[in-house]
């Protein structure tokens, strides 16, 4: 148990006063020469059990009364968890989930899950952890920050709301790393989160290592301050696939607009929502009727009018439980040319790719495709290349070519590694070419291809690509950490997406997207290798999907998920519009909004940052899943309600005073003389 005035506990021995007084009183008895001892002995014999018990109870009540008074004066703290924790930790690490879903509010108090958690933790630190080292690790930056003033915890920029997602295993790993680095002693880790599956990533491979790390550290206690409740009155808006189209009627903005609502009657009732659309600062309100839980408008069109060839916009919903998902930002500009570079000395292959990549799929966009020989790599226009086909020996890491490829990927552009005919080269991105297999006489049999995502995914209307009709004669094996998209019967992968090295986390968007844009094709669009070129549909789709993945990187208007590195690499960033005014204080990339980079026309870039789509996923971890994630770890979970007035460490002196009053009442009741009618007068009874 913790006390705010533990010094007053020195007075606890005073609780023995009643016993001492009782003993003194017994010593101060008078002495009487007595004849009728037989009655005394009989009376003592009869009263031995009950009277002694009564006497003991009276003394106990008196001791309790004094003890509770001393305890009350020492200002004890309750909250179960604190008292169970048994003492103050040397270090208190606060892990704060700053994801957008933590902004769910209690409309009566105006407090969000995040602010409620901060208030609880600040109160806890003030009351119980004064003198402990306080370390804050927030989900948005994952940087350990030393906090000196617990009262200021809510006002720190590092605890402000963001539009990001959280990565709970990464946060815990950071905490463990911090403890290892600083050789912290007794440590309490307080993790405040809303238990969203999207943030906790139960499928992450990090959990196993975390579990063993945490379980092995006996001086570390983990407390989960969780807010698992889901919004009951909320609507969220998302915008995707924003494209500027030039039509005979003029410029239009086409986008996919989705409004998802959570209401008690969301499944059945219709609701008209006034949606505010802002375009380069001009606001209009359009009423949209939502039937059922979700309204999806694919190809929602906004007339841009003259003078709005480039710019930004936002869509806002009326205030509800979660203000963080009430806005979606978008930017638009002249579409960039989708430049494809094919580095190859194989004219058949290069020409097939060039033809596919140059074919237009969007009339408003220019497609260009260039073949460059392996000896002319220096001619590659890296900044303008959306997709690069590399059919050359893989460069060794550290070489200029490898560095350029790395930068190309880091910028989010696409890269497809094609097998060179002879020398495979070194290992890069974890990929190394192996041997060729197959010949024209014995076609390789396709066993399986990935239909839910990737280059060979089904079309939008769910129809599968005709991959099964392809014929493969030769393919080159490769090794590396890849996600197979097409497999042979023999189990070898022909087409794969390279899985990024290490855990993906918030702030690693670029590397993640880079990896998403890195593919390995084991076969070539040559008639002696495959029927890719002749069965052109699959090859065309694969090429353009890869090109689409890298096209955003060269676009002047990009839409990205908010994150620590979402705006890195963009100089002279300026916020055009933000979700909330106070977001200007946040670190770059953490707040949803529309941003502009650069000063001149050439280097001007527009970026829209929105919360990750996963933040709209309301699924929370159930207790069993949480138990499984933290199996073997000594942790305690405190489920809290957003905006509730309770405290993690509330003072309970009132309870002690009540206990004292009860003890005194009990003592008085025990001291009461027997009922008058039950009194025995031996003389009266004998007359």
């Amino acid at each position, binding site marked *: 148990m913790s006390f705010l005035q533990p010094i007053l506990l020195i007075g606890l021995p005073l609780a023995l006063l009643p016993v001492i007084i009782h003993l003194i*009183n*017994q010593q*101060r*008895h*008078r*002495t*009487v*020469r*007595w*004849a*009728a*001892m*037989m*009655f*005394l*002995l*009989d*009376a*003592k014999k*009869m*009263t031995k059990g009950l*009277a002694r018990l*009564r*006497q003991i109870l009276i003394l106990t009540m008196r001791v309790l009364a004094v003890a509770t008074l001393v305890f009350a004066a020492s200002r004890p703290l309750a909250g179960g968890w604190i008292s169970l924790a048994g003492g103050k930790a040397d270090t208190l690490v606060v892990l704060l989930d700053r994801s957008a879903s933590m902004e769910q509010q209690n409309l009566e108090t105006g407090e969000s899950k995040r602010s409620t958690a901060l208030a609880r933790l600040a109160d806890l630190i003030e009351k119980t952890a004064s003198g402990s080292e306080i370390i804050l690790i927030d989900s948005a930056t994952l940087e350990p920050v030393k906090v000196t003033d617990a009262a200021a915890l809510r006002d720190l920029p590092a605890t402000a709301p963001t539009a990001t997602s959280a990565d709970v295993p990464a946060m815990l790993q950071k905490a463990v790393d911090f403890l290892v680095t600083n050789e912290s002693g007794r440590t309490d880790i307080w993790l405040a989160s809303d238990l969203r599956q999207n943030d906790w990533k139960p499928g992450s491979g990090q959990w196993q290592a975390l579990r063993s790390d945490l379980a092995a550290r006996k001086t570390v206690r983990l407390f989960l301050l969780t807010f698992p409740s889901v919004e009951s009155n909320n609507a969220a808006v998302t915008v995707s696939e924003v494209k500027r189209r030039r039509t005979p009627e003029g410029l239009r903005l086409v986008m996919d607009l989705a409004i998802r609502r959570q209401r008690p009657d969301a499944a059945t009732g219709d609701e008209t929502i006034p949606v505010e659309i802002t375009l380069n600062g001009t606001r209009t309100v359009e009423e949209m009727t939502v039937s059922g839980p979700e309204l999806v408008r694919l190809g929602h069109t906004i007339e841009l009018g003259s003078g709005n060839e480039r710019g930004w916009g936002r869509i806002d919903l009326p205030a509800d439980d979660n203000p963080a998902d009430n806005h979606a930002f978008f930017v638009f500009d002249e579409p960039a040319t989708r430049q494809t570079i094919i580095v190859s000395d194989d004219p058949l292959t290069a020409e097939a790719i060039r033809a596919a990549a140059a074919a237009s799929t969007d009339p408003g966009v220019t497609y260009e495709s260039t073949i460059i020989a392996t000896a002319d790599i220096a001619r590659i226009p890296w900044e303008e290349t959306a997709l690069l086909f590399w059919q050359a020996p893989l460069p060794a890491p550290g070489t200029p070519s490898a560095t350029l490829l790395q930068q190309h990927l880091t910028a989010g552009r696409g890269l497809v590694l094609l097998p060179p005919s002879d020398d495979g080269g070194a290992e890069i991105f974890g990929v190394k070419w192996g041997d060729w297999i197959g010949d024209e006489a014995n076609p390789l049999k396709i066993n399986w291809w990935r239909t839910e995502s990737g280059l060979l995914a089904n079309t939008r209307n769910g129809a599968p690509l005709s991959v099964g009709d392809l014929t493969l004669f030769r393919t080159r094996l490769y090794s590396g950490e890849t996600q197979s998209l097409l497999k042979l019967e023999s189990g070898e992968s022909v087409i794969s997406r390279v899985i990024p090295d290490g855990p993906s986390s918030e702030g690693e968007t670029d590397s993640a997207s880079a990896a998403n844009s890195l593919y390995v094709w084991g076969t070539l669009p040559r008639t002696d290798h495959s029927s890719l070129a002749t069965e052109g549909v699959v090859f065309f789709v694969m090429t353009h999907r890869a090109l689409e993945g890298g096209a955003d990187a060269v676009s002047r208007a990009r839409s990205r998920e908010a994150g620590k590195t979402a705006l890195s690499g963009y100089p002279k960033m300026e916020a055009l519009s933000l979700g909330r005014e106070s977001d200007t204080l946040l670190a770059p990339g953490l707040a949803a909004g529309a941003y502009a980079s650069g000063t001149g026309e050439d280097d001007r870039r527009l970026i829209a940052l929105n919360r990750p789509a996963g933040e709209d996923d309301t699924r929370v971890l159930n207790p069993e899943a949480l138990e499984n994630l933290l199996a073997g770890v000594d942790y305690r979970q405190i489920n809290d309600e957003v905006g509730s007035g309770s405290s993690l460490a509330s003072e309970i002196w009132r309870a002690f005073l009540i206990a004292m009053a009860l003890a005194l009442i009990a003592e008085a009741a025990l001291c009461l*003389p*027997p009922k008058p009618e*039950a*009194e*025995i*007068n*031996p*003389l009266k*009874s*004998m007359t």
Partner: protein
Amino acid sequence: MSRDSNRDFLDPTVLGKLLGLQLNARSPMMGNVSGRHRSPVRGSAIEFAQYRKYVQGDDTRRLDWRTWGRTDRYYIKEFEADTNLRLCLIVDTSGSMGYGEPGSTRLDYARRLSGTLAYLAGQQGDAIGLYSGSVGTYRETPPRRGPQHLGLVLDQIAALKADGETGLIQAMHEAAEKIRQRALIVIVSDFLFHPEPLREAFQHLRFRKHDVSVFHLLDRQEIEFTFDRPTRFIDLEGGASLLADPTLIQRRYHEAVKDYLETINDIVNHSAVDYHRTFLDEAYDQVLARFLMGRNPKTARTAR
């Protein structure tokens, strides 16, 4: 009687008041000399008793010639025989009899009662005996008449000391065995022991056709037990002392006293004992007056 410091338990004023009351037995007594008390045998007193037929061997001098003259039958005319009374005092001298303030202990009260009764009996010409003692110190003075013996008994009463455990039951049985003729036995005690043995002792005395009277001396504090703070009680009969909080045990104490008194009442009722519960704050002359008047057939109704 001279004022002797050893006999200060005798108050001349009280004696003067009580001399007018006669000490009677409730049943005929077997004295060895003529006296004021009825005898179970017929004698030649002036009070007519009955007629009975003459049988051979009867003293012809006792024939009622007038009846013979009228009826021509021989009848013997019998008269009551008056005899003296044997007063046997049994005084408990156990340690508990020493309860009370010096000069007004229970034993002092017993001295006054027994001494005054002895004096009254002596004045009536009755024989007086004294049996007393506690465990290990039994004393016996058989009943005799005469002033000299009265003086001896009074001296022995003056010399009584309260000490040790009670030997009253033993003294009662001894008296029952040794007093062969009918006597008035007056027992003065606090009876502060478990009372069941008394039943047998009383029955033993009644079996010997003695007239048994009892003065049960009690202090009101012993009954009411009105202490209000922890007290160490020291046993007057030498037992272990006891520290107790009277407020805690008062109720049980009263229950124990009630049971005890009910048992005593039951015993004396079944033994036909003339029982007098006496509190030490009562005037002993009034107690004795009530006792004496209760035994006088003429005043018995008003006394009770």
